[in-house]
């Protein structure tokens, strides 16, 4: 059955359900549990796959191997006490997790953030995006069989950015940097200079990866036309981030909400038009270039001043009763927090909207009818972190 055939079939069942694919009747179905220790699953994640020869007939993701009930723990902790724990959600992008949580609490309390802190947040957020996209491209190529080299190119650059994080926050990955109403410490002029130097080297790195990979014959043969996600289904299934834009939907929360100071920045939103794995790879490459432009602008314009709202209360922090949903464009998609306060020192309800988990809703739809070797690639192109999927 061709792919359009699947979509036709799909419409009969209910257009947003995965299609039912019949085996051709020859031979037995082979049921394989891919994971939880499969090297391509980025952690502990299992896909129960039914195969007819090499073709995928059914695919059910199984979650929970890394579940520690982050939300319950946060409900028993003070508002600020959960800030370091948000680092452990998507441990590749701890700073954007901090940002989303701080933004939601600021919505809940109506706190203001000083301008310098907003600039620092944009700088750190975009650096996080660059290193996330670089390493996710590295992982994708690694899963295609190019063992080591492209991933090490990506990690070389990522390590430079992690050094910057360490210089400012004291930690490479578990940064715990943002606070409600600003940032924890100010950036020194020396740190800003070091950041300018790293940022000026990034376009060279992207050109290098571009030359090495973008028109590579094997990469194109393996990824083009594989794992197609139609835009209607992507929107209906709540897919966000580079995945959604690779399906051709123009929706970037930095543009739509303009949270922080993003409406001061001039950047373009790259969109895919073939909706396949190659588009997702390419969108990440292009987003890195846009991030670099934003970084250059932010580093040029960053004003002097405080990094913390002087009226912000650290001790005895008790927001008034109410609730708020805040969201940002994290590198993996829409990262949201939903908080209900009952006036006490800890949240009554604390919810993380994990982009990684919700982007996996349509994993089965993308994999059905594909070869089992492509499942690894399609899964890699979603770009997930299990710390966030299982929470």
């Amino acid at each position, binding site marked *: 059955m061709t792919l359009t055939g699947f979509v036709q079939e799909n419409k009969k069942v*209910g257009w*947003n*359900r995965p299609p039912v694919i019949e085996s051709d009747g020859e031979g037995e179905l082979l049921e394989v549990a891919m994971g939880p220790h499969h090297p391509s699953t980025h952690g502990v994640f299992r896909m129960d796959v039914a195969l007819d020869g090499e073709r995928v007939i059914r695919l059910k993701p199984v*979650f*929970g191997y890394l*579940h520690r*009930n982050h*939300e*319950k723990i946060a409900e028993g902790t003070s508002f600020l006490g959960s800030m370091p724990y948000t680092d452990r959600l998507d441990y590749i992008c701890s700073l954007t997790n901090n940002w989303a949580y701080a933004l939601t609490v600021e*919505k*809940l*309390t*109506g706190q203001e953030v000083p301008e310098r802190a907003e600039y620092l947040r944009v700088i750190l957020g975009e650096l996080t995006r660059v290193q996330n996209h670089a390493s996710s491209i590295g992982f994708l190529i690694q899963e295609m069989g190019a063992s080591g080299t492209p991933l090490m190119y990506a990690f070389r650059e990522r390590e430079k950015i992690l050094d910057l994080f360490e210089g400012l926050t004291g930690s490479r990955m578990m940064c715990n940097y943002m606070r409600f109403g600003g940032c924890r410490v100010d950036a020194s002029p020396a740190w800003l200079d070091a950041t300018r130097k790293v940022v000026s080297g990034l376009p060279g790195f992207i050109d290098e990866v571009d030359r090495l990979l973008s028109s590579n014959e094997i990469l194109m043969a393996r990824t083009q036309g594989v794992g197609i996600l139609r835009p209607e*289904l992507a*929107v*209906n*299934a*709540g*897919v*966000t981030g580079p995945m959604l834009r690779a399906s051709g*939907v123009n*929706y970037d929360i930095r543009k*739509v909400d303009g949270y922080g100071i993003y409406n001061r920045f001039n950047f373009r939103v790259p969109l895919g038009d073939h909706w396949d794995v190659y588009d997702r790879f390419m969108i990440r490459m292009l987003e890195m270039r846009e991030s670099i432009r934003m970084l250059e602008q932010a580093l040029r314009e960053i004003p002097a001043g405080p990094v913390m709202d002087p009226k912000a209360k650290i001790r005895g922090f008790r*927001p*008034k*009763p*109410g*609730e*708020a*949903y*805040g*969201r940002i464009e994290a590198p993996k998609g*829409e990262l*949201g927090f*939903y908080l*209900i*306060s009952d006036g006490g020192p800890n949240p009554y*309800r604390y*919810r993380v*909207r994990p982009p990684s*988990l*919700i982007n*996996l*809703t*349509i994993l089965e739809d993308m994999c059905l009818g594909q070869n089992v070797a492509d499942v690894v690639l399609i899964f890699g192109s979603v770009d997930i972190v299990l710390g966030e999927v*299982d*929470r």
Partner: protein
Amino acid sequence: MKTVEEIKAAIEAAVPEAAVEIVPNPSPSGQHSLRLGQRHAEAVAKFLRDDADLALDFLSNVTGVDWPDKEIAEKVKVTQTVTKTVDGVEQAVDETVEETRKRVQPGYLEAVYHLFSMEKKQGPVVIRLRTVNRTDQVELPSLTSIWRSAEFQEREIFDLYGIVFAGHPDLRRLLMWPEFEDHPMRRDYVEPDDFDYEPTAHDQVLARAAAHRAALAAGQESAGQEGKGAGQ
């Protein structure tokens, strides 16, 4: 973007029996929500998605909230007629006494949906659904057939809160293992006594383990919370 009052009016025009209620939100975020009646929730959801002005095609976040039974103590002034002896004569005198009355506000489980529009680039619209109680009537209509993104999130709520979504295509536990019995995100959840899994088997734990084994040997099936969280 329409205000919640306008959205309420639009829903009532489209689905007359919808029973929509505005839940105000006093925080500065100003995200007021709409509580829908269970019976017509699916029709309202379909309207919200397909309406040309709202076009809420993107269901971002679905989550559960547990509101347990709440004991409310109220001070009520009660006038009583009391027989008193005044100046040696028995008289009926009206007396106002302050009494503290306790009543229990029944608890419920709630599912909260955050909707956005990708087409119109607007949102959020927050809708809430309530179960009848927390124990035996915990069914809610599933909105997965309207928005696919609810599929895993409703499974998560079923797993952690125990709301049963009627009409969900694949309602299984998402994060906990299938044999697990309780719902960990409920406010009154008590962790099982996993004495076997204590990282350090110090004296206290060993004593508890011995008590468990003795109870089991005596044939008390209900001893501890065997099978509830232990196992695997």
